[in-house]
Structures are given as structure tokens and as C-alpha cells.
């Protein structure tokens, strides 16, 4: 039997907030540190996704270690099952990120990629990557504004897709 200790991973997560004024507006910055207790390794993050990735890596190592005497097929099977938990976290992760760690710089890179994906679906003509690096220091209200615009855009895209589909028919 594998020891309980070898089946356990504990994490200590520290969040540090800084509220500051910039251009007459209140802003918030989150920084964090996650530590894996059993091996003492640490990872700092300003994007919570990095902390989740760190946890995933540690848990994968734990599963690999616990299944090292099984056939590679069995091990692969267990690892796949283990990964399914992370699919759920992946769905929740971005929401957590949006709700808690409003890091404008990274958020807007994410949004940039989302925009890119959506636009590519419609036409090659407008698939040029939108440059929004100047939004690096965007505020919370800017963030919400762009988020709203994306949602509007997504709705428009849906409408257009329907039209295209109906025309094809």
C-alpha cells in the first residue's frame, strides 16, 4: 500500500493586493505566491492561471509516482482521469481570474487572443490581430467596457453566421 503522505499534496497560497491611484482613478494589482509544502518549491504569479498550472504539475507528478509500477497503459489511463478534474478547473479558472485577479496586462492579452479566435471564424479579411497593447494599464471600467464590446461582437458574429448558413441553403 502507498503511504498516505505520498498521496497528499498541500499548497499554501498567498495573495497580496495593492490598491493605488493612477490618472485619478483607483486601481488594484494582485500578486501571489504558491508553495508546495511537501517539496518546498514556490512559484510567484500575477496571473492565477500560473498558480493552477503549478498545482497541476505537482499533482501530475504525484499521480505518476503513485502509478510508476503499473503498465504504461494503466498509468496513462489514470493520468487521463486525473486530468479530467482540471477540465472543470479550467472552466472555472477564467471566471475566478476575472472576478479576483484583475491583472489588466494579462487580461487584455487573453482578450486579444479571444478576439483573434472569434474574428478568424468569420473571414480571413479581418483576421489581422487587433493591437491593444496600449490598454496595458487599462482600468476596471475599461476592462468591463471592452468585455461588453466583445459580448456584443460575439452576438453580431452569431447573427452573421446564421445569415451565411441560411444563404448557403
Amino acid at each position: 500500500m502507498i503511504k498516505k503522505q505520498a498521496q497528499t499534496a498541500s499548497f499554501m497560497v498567498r495573495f497580496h493586493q495593492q490598491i493605488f491611484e493612477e490618472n485619478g482613478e483607483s486601481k488594484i494589482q494582485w500578486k501571489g505566491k504558491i508553495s508546495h509544502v511537501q517539496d518546498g518549491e514556490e512559484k510567484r504569479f500575477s496571473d492565477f492561471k500560473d498558480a493552477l498550472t503549478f498545482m497541476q504539475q505537482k499533482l501530475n507528478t504525484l499521480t505518476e509516482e503513485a502509478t510508476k509500477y503499473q503498465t504504461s497503459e494503466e498509468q496513462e489511463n489514470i493520468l487521463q482521469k486525473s486530468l479530467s478534474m482540471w477540465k472543470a478547473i479550467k472552466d472555472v479558472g477564467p471566471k475566478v481570474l476575472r472576478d479576483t485577479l484583475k491583472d489588466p496586462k494579462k487580461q487584455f492579452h487573453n482578450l486579444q487572443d479571444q478576439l483573434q479566435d472569434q474574428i478568424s471564424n468569420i473571414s480571413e479579411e479581418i483576421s489581422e490581430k487587433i493591437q491593444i497593447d496600449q490598454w496595458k494599464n487599462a482600468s476596471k471600467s475599461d476592462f468591463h467596457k471592452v468585455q461588453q464590446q466583445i459580448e456584443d461582437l460575439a452576438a453580431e458574429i452569431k447573427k452573421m453566421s446564421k445569415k451565411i448558413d441560411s444563404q448557403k441553403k
Partner: protein
Amino acid sequence: MADLLQQIEHLKSFEKQAEIKIQTLGNFVLWRNQEKISDKEWGRDKAIQLFQYFISNRKKNALHKEKIMDNLWEDWDDRDFKVALHGIQKVLEPNRINRTEPNFIIRQGVSYQIDLEKVWIDVEALEKYIIIGNEALTIDKNSAKIAYKEAIELYKGSFLPSRIFEDWTSEEREKNQLLILGTYITLAEILLDENPIESIRLSQNALEIDATWEDAYRIQMQAYIAKGNRPQALKTYMKCEVILEEEYGISPLPETKMLLQKIEEIH
């Protein structure tokens, strides 16, 4: 104000008079009647572990035996617990007469806890000094300084360093680290005008615990300027910028950048 100083004095005299004193920061040491107890006297490591668990969870009232054992050891039975507890009692009260109530470990049925009224523990005292310091900060800076200095004096390193891989020690370690980081910064800020060299030292101590603690860089920059050392102030900003980029991929806060600007304007 006098009340705050009295509280500090009370804490100091408790440290002097306590029959049992425990150091957990930087190292684990126990003194019984001012005499340091050797590892040999503890006998089994399980007795030390159980005692350290009591310390780590001293604020959770009455710890249940089964929960303690589950958190501490893989396989255990009643005998393990009895032997470990007996080991503790033997160290704390070697001359206690059989069947009399223990003096330092309070027992209620199958729950146990350390009697904090009788046992002096560094982490407990450190927190109390910081509470006094925080309370004094706005009304009596002098008392605040005394209290913070006492707390800093107690911080000899991280909590139970030989148990860093045990998850039951993590919470206490993290709590103490944040408490002492805050104390270094607050005291360094108080001392900026009267003793900038000390502010530099204190913020350096904070950076040794966490090299990304931006407040510490800002205080160091201010302290170097107070000492007329502009190049060192600029160098400190550079260090801050590099470490924040390396560790988080972010740049310093506007407050830090503004301070840099002010320093750059000095000729």
C-alpha cells in the same frame, strides 16, 4: 499609553518567569526552569512532533486525540499517543507524582491543549508585541517602536524549520512570516527620519524573507536619499524593477515610479 508600556513589561516578565519556555522560530528549543532541554531528554521524535503539533494548533481549543493522530501519523494506535504524551509530560514535569493532574497540558476527556497562561511560546509573544505595537502606532509612536523591536528580537527565522515539509506547520509559518514582514516595514517607516540606516537594515531583512516586497524597496530608496546616497537609491529601484519583472512579469507600482522620478530630479 502607560497601559501599553505596562503590557510590554508584563510580557517581558512572563518570559523571564515562565517555568516552561519554547522557541520555535529559527530553531526548536525548550527551557525548563531556565535550563535548556537536550534532544536526548525528549527521547522519541514522536513526542517532539506531538508537542510541536500542540504549539502549531494552540489557538484551536481542545484538540481531539483522533484528529491529532490523523494529522500527524500514517498508522497509529492508542499506545503511540500515550507514549508520545507521556514523553512530553516527562520533559515538562519530570518530578510530577503519578496520577496527579498535569500542569502544562490541559486535558478535557480526549481533548488536549497547551496552557498558554503557564507556558511562554515565542510565536505567541511575537504576535502580542505586534498587537501592542499596532495599537500604539497612532497614539504613541515610542511605545509602538518598543513593541515592534521586541517582536523583531524574537524572530530568529521561520517557524519550526525542521518541519517545513509537514503541512500542519504551514499555516503558522505563513502567518508569522507575514506578521514579521509587516513589522519590519512599519518600524522602518517610523524610523525613516530619525535613523535611516536602521530603516535600510530593517527593509533589507524584509527583502531577505521576500525579495519581491515592493514596500521594502521604496523605504530603502527613501532612506538612501535621507542619507544623501542618490546612486544607491537609484540602484535599489533597479533591483526592484528587475525582480518584479523576473518573478511576476510586472513593473513597479506608480508610487515607486514617482519616487524614482523625484530622486532623478535631485541634483
